[in-house]
């Protein structure tokens, strides 16, 4: 009998040790909560965004998806993605990722010429040139700027202080923005910029809305899940 108890205690402690060993691979949750000073606002904004997405944005995107065939939608995504080149190129350079910057340049050149202004991703299909998504938020992260508090932006969704600040330099480089102070503008006026941005949003929504619904279904605390996904993903992107 005593041997049995001794065995049970041994198993208990051996098991407990094993779990402790795993614990070190994951984050201490107490820290996580202290680092979300805007949690009440973030929760409220997440609910607002959710209402906007499910009642307004997703129905429009569903309509877009059912009317416009897959191939056409791909052409729209490709064209818009191709125009993200300046942001990706500059931020790759700022992080000294020269071979990535070169690959981005190759993609832009090939897709704009042989891909008919970006409609076809010829660089990927013919030469397997891969995109390297860098933005100024990641550049700041690369230089050691910490994320700051998590902030959920109206309509745009999860972000954090560093990434929000990073949006401004990127906006200046974005060809799809109309900025009168800029010497070179692809578009003629702000209205064109709003329309293109609108199409971009609807197109991207048509791709990501199923994932959003899946995450909502799987989550126990939807806001926390979104926050975790965003912050973990950003950490991984910065480390790459």
């Amino acid at each position: 009998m005593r041997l049995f108890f001794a065995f049970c205690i041994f198993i208990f402690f051996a098991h407990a040790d094993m779990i402790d060993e795993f614990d070190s691979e994951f984050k201490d949750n107490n820290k996580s909560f202290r680092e979300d000073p805007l949690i009440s606002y973030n929760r409220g904004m997440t609910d607002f965004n959710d209402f906007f997405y499910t009642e307004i944005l997703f129905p429009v995107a569903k309509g877009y998806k059912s009317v416009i065939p897959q191939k056409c939608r791909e052409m729209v995504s490709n064209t818009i993605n191709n125009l993200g080149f300046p942001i990706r190129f500059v931020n790759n350079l700022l992080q000294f990722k020269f071979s990535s910057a070169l690959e981005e340049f190759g993609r832009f050149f090939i897709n704009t010429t042989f891909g008919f202004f970006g409609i076809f991703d010829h660089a990927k299909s013919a030469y397997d040139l891969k995109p390297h998504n860098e933005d100024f938020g990641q550049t700041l992260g690369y230089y050691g700027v910490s994320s700051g508090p998590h902030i959920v932006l109206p309509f745009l969704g999860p972000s954090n202080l560093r990434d929000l600040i990073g949006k401004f330099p990127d906006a200046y480089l974005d060809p799809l923005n109309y900025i009168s102070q800029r010497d070179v503008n692809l578009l003629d006026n702000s209205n064109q910029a709003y329309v293109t941005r609108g199409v971009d949003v609807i197109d991207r929504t048509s791709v990501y809305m199923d994932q959003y619904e899946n995450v909502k279904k799987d989550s126990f605390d939807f806001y926390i899940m979104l926050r975790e996904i965003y912050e973990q993903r950003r950490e991984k992107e910065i480390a790459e």
Partner: protein
Amino acid sequence: MKRFIFGVLFFIPFLLVASDEITLKVELQKKVDYITKLLNDKSLDVQKRNSMILESIDGLIDFELMSQLSLDKNDRQKLNETQRKEFITLFEKELKDSFLDKLKNYSDEKIELKEPKKIKEDRISLPSVIKSKNGDTEVVFKYYLTKQKEWKIYDLEVAGVSLVQSYRTQFSELLTNGGAEKLLEKLRKK
């Protein structure tokens, strides 16, 4: 000459025994191929197919450990023994249901397994890419070595996001705000 021959003979067994990493990759590929075959077999009744799929991954994914790890050290203390047992049972079921639910949307996605990496003596990380018409998603399978010297999956990183970590943070929040019973209630409802 004799020493040279002896030296070569001595090393041959090491060459013939596949490393853990390679064995894992081969085994996971077999499972992936089997599950893909099941998903493509339209003649199978969905319930039957799902139970066959779960059976095939039973020894591969350590659902019980994943359930335990989804509570951090402090949170584990907030549940008594009965509550902990119920939590593990409910969450295991939730993980399996969620996995099967994802398979419902299967439409010819392909998984490409990449090179496994031995992180520690008892940890291997096996990266992969899921290629779908909407783009590629990286999934990393994280393995650990059990006391019985078997390799099992204890976490998945989807697009850089750890499944276990995401649940840990959510459950922590729920326990802080509502306590153990509220958490179990939420799980029971799912």
